[in-house]
């Protein structure tokens, strides 16, 4: 049981149970405001009946339509530990995909740590496939090596031939992605 509603600034004060997760980044205020100003419809929060925040998705639409690269992007998706295994992430992804469909996107993409097997498998179940590997996309702060990311994609209905998800043969460097 979940209320899905637009994320608001006041939610920033209540999302600790979601963001104290080690793989969930807490960004500076500007980062959230940029998304709220530009793509408010893509920033959705799930709330439990008792008022606890359960999880949220933050995304955007970008890319050139002419080059058939106009797409929805998942910037952050996180669910608090106690609300996992309810299919909530899948529901939030479904919503982001629907918004992207409405905007006429060709595909939806996202980046995920190659080590984050739980997430990679979940995205695979949701129909995403690895489009390319981005070398050392995640910079580590504590002296550990930087980590690679998978750029995973799922074609939307506008991409009838599913051209957007044909995997690239070679990994790319972060500076080569748009």
């Amino acid at each position, binding site marked *: 049981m979940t209320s899905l509603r637009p994320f608001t600034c006041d939610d920033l004060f209540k999302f600790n149970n979601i963001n104290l*997760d080690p793989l969930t980044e807490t960004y500076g205020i500007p980062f959230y405001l940029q998304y*709220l100003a530009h793509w408010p*419809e893509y920033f959705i929060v799930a709330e439990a009946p008792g008022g606890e925040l359960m999880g949220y998705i933050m995304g955007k639409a970008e890319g050139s339509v002419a080059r058939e690269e106009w797409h929805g992007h998942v910037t952050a998706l996180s669910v608090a530990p106690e609300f996992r295994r309810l299919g909530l992430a899948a529901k939030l992804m479904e919503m982001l995909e629907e918004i992207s469909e409405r905007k006429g996107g060709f595909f939806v993409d996202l980046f995920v740590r190659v080590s984050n097997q739980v997430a990679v498998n979940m995205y695979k179940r949701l129909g995403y496939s690895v489009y390319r590997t981005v070398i050392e996309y995640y910079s580590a702060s504590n002296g550990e090596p930087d980590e690679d990311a998978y750029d995973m994609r799922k074609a939307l209905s506008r991409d009838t031939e599913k051209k957007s998800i044909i995997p690239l043969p070679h990994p790319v460097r972060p500076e080569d992605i748009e």
Partner: protein
Amino acid sequence: MAARGHVQDPNDRRLRPIYDYLDNGNNKMAIQQADKLLKKHKDLHCAKVLKAIGLQRTGKQDEAFALAQEVTTLEPTDDNSLQALTILYREMHRPELVTKLYEAAVKKVPLSEEYHSHLFMAYARVGEYKKMQQAGMALYKIVPKNPYYFWSVMSLVMQAISAKDEKLSQTMFLPLAERMVEKMVKEEKIEAEAEVQLYYMILERLGKCEEALEVIRGPLGEKLTSELQSRERKCMALYRRLERWPECNALAQKLLLKNPDDWQFYPSYFDSLFQLMDQSWSPPEEGDHCSEGSVHHTVAEVVRFVEERIKVEDGKDSRSLRGPYLARMELMHRLRERGYPEENLPGEPLALMVEFFRKFGDKPCCITDLKIYLHLLSPEQHVQFINQLSEAVPLGEQGEEGFAFPDDTKSLQRHLCVCQLSRALGLHHSLDVSGKLRLIGELKAHYRHGLKFGSSALKTELQFSDTYCLMAAHVYIDLWTDTGDVDMVWQSLGLLEEGLSHSPSNAQFKLLLLLLYCRLGAFEPVVDLYSSLDAKHIQHDTIGFLLTRYAESLGQFAAASQSCNFSLRFFHSNQKDTSEYIIQAYKYGAFEKIPEFIALRNRLNQSLHFAQVRTERMLLDLFLEADIILSLEESVKAMSLSSEEDDIPWDSLRDNRDLTVFTNWDPKQRQLTDEHRTRSLEEESVWLRIRSLTLRLLASLTASGHTPSQQNSEISNENGVGDKSSLLHSLLSQLNQTLQTAARIAEKQTQYPLLGPPATRLASALSIGSCQCQAAALQLSVHLQELESAGLDESSELQTQICNVFKSLVVQLQEMLNKCKGDLMEMKESKLKTQPSLLENLVFFVETVSIVMWTASYCAKILRPLKTSLQKKKKKKKDANAALPLVVCGFQELTGSLQDLLTQAVEHIRGQESGILALKLSSLSMEGISQEEASFTKAAMDKVQGSYLRSLQEVGDLLKKRAETIKNLKI
């Protein structure tokens, strides 16, 4: 740097290297290059501005500002200069100057879309709504693009929102905005979704719900496509406001059919049912029930609807949704509240909850779902309920210890849920000591058994059985608070440390460890724990209090400064950051977000925590400065601290602390209440006021703590003195009043739940007498000012009075120091005992001694010239043998006593240090726990021991530094 004008411009080529230097942070080279260029091209204004940017970034603000003003007065109209000046003024935090810049530019180039648009944004940055409205219209007249028109409309809405007079909003700004939009609607010029959103915002604020509904449901509403269910949600809100319950009911039904898990529509569905029942509503004889379709206006219909949803879920092969099952309990709860006959309820609460558990007991959120409805059970049913649930938990064979364990993670989760529910029903709390110890044993066994399911977990993942560990720690804490047995808290710490070793990312382990260490007076381990939480940005505001509440009061001053700095850095960037996104919201037409962003900015600026760290950071700086005489003056100047100014928004302080960050399964009567929250905020505010007044009074002891009255003229000097003394009186009387309020608050002895807000230092500060002594010391400055004007000759009464205060200060300090004596940590009856309050008292003593010494130094400053002039007089009279004036003797006694007090304190600390070092923790026998557990517990003890030593050292060092400067107080 951003756009650089036209490509062909030769100036661009000349300026490029400077831009590059600036971009690369090479400010010195940028300045040099600009100078070189300016030698050849004197009138290349932009080069001057770029030089100014370089100067600004190398800390030469004044030079930079002068140079920028030079160019500004020329009213430049070239893109390069304008952009560079905009950047510079923003970096200088002078956004208002940008508006002047573009006002001049549009006057000279009245048809420039670009400059007009920059002007609009410049106004937006400083919140000049009326001027924005005009600038938007001016833009629209030059280039009739819709967004410009609606910028102007939105600026009217902002005038309405910010107007102090609600009537003005309702009768002028909003109606005007409405007419502006209506005009576009009539002319069929509405293009974008944002424009409809804005129209809706206006109508809603005007309370014109019927009109708003018409817009949303009509053709304009069709433009609302980006946000999912935007139209539906808006309609629902309007139906509720209009009390159109049939429509509300019918729409809720439709939406629930579509997504029976969407909680937000169940309340509307149920509310509307009861409203319709109360109105004895009945459907029309023919035709639709209402414009949204058919209406459920009887309990039977609604029950049937919910049960049908449940049937659908029951019949599904895939995952069932919790929504309908929870909705049934919610309905039950509401029916009961209305006094609906028990026999007609759609089922029996106990059975429904057991059924819910059977279906969803293996989900971690089952407890969160069920705990809302536990009140549906009667107290007699509690045990029966838990027994029935336990039967639905498949466990394996009983082992040696008498415990049966789950065979898979789903059973584990079910078993865990039963434990959580037992705790939430108060069944843990009602156990006696041995029952609780047995429970702990069981939870620990389950915890360790469950680790096998996560043997391959990554270190970023939690262990399936972590919650057992956390709960066992909670039961230990129950025992600790109930019986005062310190071993319970040691074992709790040990267990949590053990848990963290298996599950290094568990934030709840870290939070609870952090809290317990603080409660034991040990701040040192907290630093690493908190930093491993990786709390950043807004989290400094929401959970930063966990650090700042304890660091200073536990004598870890360096860490305290650092914690304040983390938070301050975040708050200071907020003002500039939010403005930029308000502008972006205009650009992208996210009009709804604009008031939201402004509210966020205010919420952060008015944050209680912000005001606290601002104040405490300055106090800390003062306390930590070693040199009493010089540094107070200099520090006050460096902090631009002024006794006149109060920058704390007392009436609008916002408590942004996340007080529910700790996981907690306590029964309702033990949970944090709104009353606790109110009391905590009240207590925090009063404590903050005491600290802030103390700070301002300290500033008033210095010359630079007074901003005005620095002129040379005789008259203004006199005024200055007058102002100073009346300000002093006012601050002191505020302090006294606040102390009275504080005493009343302390009397209440509010007990917060352990996992709720920590109490402030207020009660201890009063009970040790630190506030009173500080106030008495600060009060002294009034008498000293009187003495300054009266002189030493004819002021014996005043001098006696002052001497009495001196004596009383010494007595008070001695009493405080006595309350620091005792053993911070000791071994007694094979238990390791601690008295963290002794450490806190020691810190109060240090703070108070510092304040007394500052007033003493102020005293010395006043007495010295008086004494000198007296000696001169005496020399003339050849009366050198006469006795010293009373106040001088008294002062010498004071400094002597202070010296003595400091020596005592330092000796006490030395004694504590050697006592703690001599403790043989290894000799503690740890009965009843395994060797492995004992090692974690010992590790926790070591941390506390180490932390005490560090605190003692920091406090001792500070006292020693203070002692060294006493000799400077001689007169």
